[in-house]
């Protein structure tokens, strides 16, 4: 049992880890074919795992409705929306249009899903404004530097700003291309090394917490 729960997954991770790290250096079509096959396996596994996820979702909200927990009405709306969409989707064979005419399934997507997603995304503009307001209050020296840099970049990125202060465009480009890009690259180097180190730890079985728990 310990072999199945512990050693076998580590062994599989080691073999596949080495195999697919090596795949990067092998341009042969067989290597590409192997990668494509495994990507398809992942999609199939993902499809089955979705059943697991949806079951979890149904279960949690069923419990909330049954126990009449606070906010159970939202769970009811979720059930109605999900079951309704599944039934309508099956009724129309998953098609959004039939002979150029939008089906009810397509209507749900175009006139409910898309506007709702758009609304959430649009909120971002207001959230950026409120977050910027909090950050740009020049309470410390760092915040003051941030405020000055932000004002220059904002001026340099809009036509009116560049019209009022012509040099703002050049300063903005310098801030973005020199200060911003160099720091970003430094962070990316650290991230890449961290990711490689984590991958090595996983491949060689040093990091096993992802299997459930850290120690044997």
């Amino acid at each position, binding site marked *: 049992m310990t072999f199945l729960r512990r050693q076998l997954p580590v062994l599989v991770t080691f073999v596949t880890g080495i195999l697919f*790290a090596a795949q990067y250096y092998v341009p042969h079509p067989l290597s590409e074919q192997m990668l494509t096959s495994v990507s398809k396996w992942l999609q199939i596994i993902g499809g089955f795992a979705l059943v697991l996820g949806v079951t979890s979702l149904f279960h949690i909200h069923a419990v909330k409705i049954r126990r009449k927990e606070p906010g159970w009405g939202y769970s009811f709306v979720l059930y109605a929306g999900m079951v309704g969409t599944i039934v309508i989707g099956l009724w129309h064979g998953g098609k959004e249009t039939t002979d150029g005419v939008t089906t009810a399934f397509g209507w749900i997507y175009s006139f409910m899903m898309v506007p709702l997603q758009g609304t959430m995304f649009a909120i971002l503009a207001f959230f950026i404004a409120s977050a910027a307001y909090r950050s740009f209050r020049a309470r410390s020296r760092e915040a003051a530097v941030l405020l000055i840099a932000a004002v220059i970049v904002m001026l340099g990125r809009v036509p009116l700003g560049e019209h009022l202060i012509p040099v703002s465009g050049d300063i903005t480009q310098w801030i973005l291309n020199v200060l911003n890009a160099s720091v970003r690259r430094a962070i990316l180097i650290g991230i890449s090394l961290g990711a490689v*180190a984590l991958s090595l730890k996983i491949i060689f079985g040093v990091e096993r917490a992802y299997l459930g728990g850290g120690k044997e």
Partner: protein
Amino acid sequence: MNSERRTMKVLLTVLLLMPSSAAQAESPPLPPQHVQVFDTPNDSGGSLTITWAKTDGESKDRRYQVLLQDPIAGVPKVIAEFASDSHYVQDVKTPWWTRPASQGTHQFTLKPGKGIDLKDGTSYAVTVAAVAGEQRTPAEPVQATPAPNWFNWNQINNLAIVMIFGLIVLGSIQTAKRREIFLRRIPGLDAVDEAIGRATELGKPILYLTGAGDMSEPSTVAAAVILGRVAKRVAAYETDLMVPHRDPIVMAVCQEITKQSYLEAGKPDVFKEDSNFFITTDQFSYTAAVDGIMLRKKPAANFFMGSYFAESLLLTETGASTGAIQIAGTDSDHQLPFFVTTCDYTLIGEELYAASAYLSREPVQLGTLRGQDIGKACILVALGLGTAVATASILFHLDLSFALDLVKDWK
């Protein structure tokens, strides 16, 4: 088969040597010298490379034609035509150790597409013709067969770096087992206990997000590993833990990790099967759902680990409005400003990967961090040397590409 090839070669040569009547008076250009055709190295097949020597008098007025003979029709076809002072070996983006000829030699690669379909294992007759005005002088056709390769030597420097870095990491792990390694403070990770303690005092739950990625992303794996450490402490305090997911596989993995952590903390009875739950794979639906959870349940501590996209600010700003202590850790560099702005503590980039070692303090894990630091030092040295060499090559007009190629394209 050989007699067929010979006939094809003769036919190709005769066809190419036929001058047009208008050009009878002009002197024909010299044929390209030292023409070599061979399978393109380090590729997946279906490609041939041609090299030929540079000759005197090459200019924009003079041209080269690359001709490929169809193995079925047997008729040579002009595949490419270009100025004679172009298409040199140094124009092709390959490192110096895989260049097929010296710099200054012409190089052209026949790739599939635009009417070319080269099949692996089939022999093709290819030649290059020099064109001046209406006159064309071809070189002797050369037979070559495309084939796929088993190793990409262009990436040997990358492999060497990975192996050296791997050895440094493994060596550092061995060192860490023998002696203690200093670890600088990471305030974001020191605050984990504070956040959990605060949630316990307030009797409110803890919200932990593993990001938008799936289990193939290192940041998601790191987030799942940190969840294990956090869950162990949460179990000890018997505080509620909520982990909403965007990926069902990540959910299944995190369920196991959480369960094990509760077991290790000696509190298996406190573990709730539905502490990890799936919401949706859709970005903004997930965001709306998590925002709703934050506003209704008002968790005392929010953890945002893993990779994030546009939803990052929507999540953290909502969390900030509820007054929760917020700790973020991400390798999504474009989302870092949002996290830094709205969270109390942010693990920037590699700190996310260091978190597991920092929280566990296991020598094996700490050794990896030391390995990373040595790797960073090596990169710093390479950056300094690369900058110096690149600057020197411009200032003193030196060709130092042999040195620059070594540190280029590590990917």
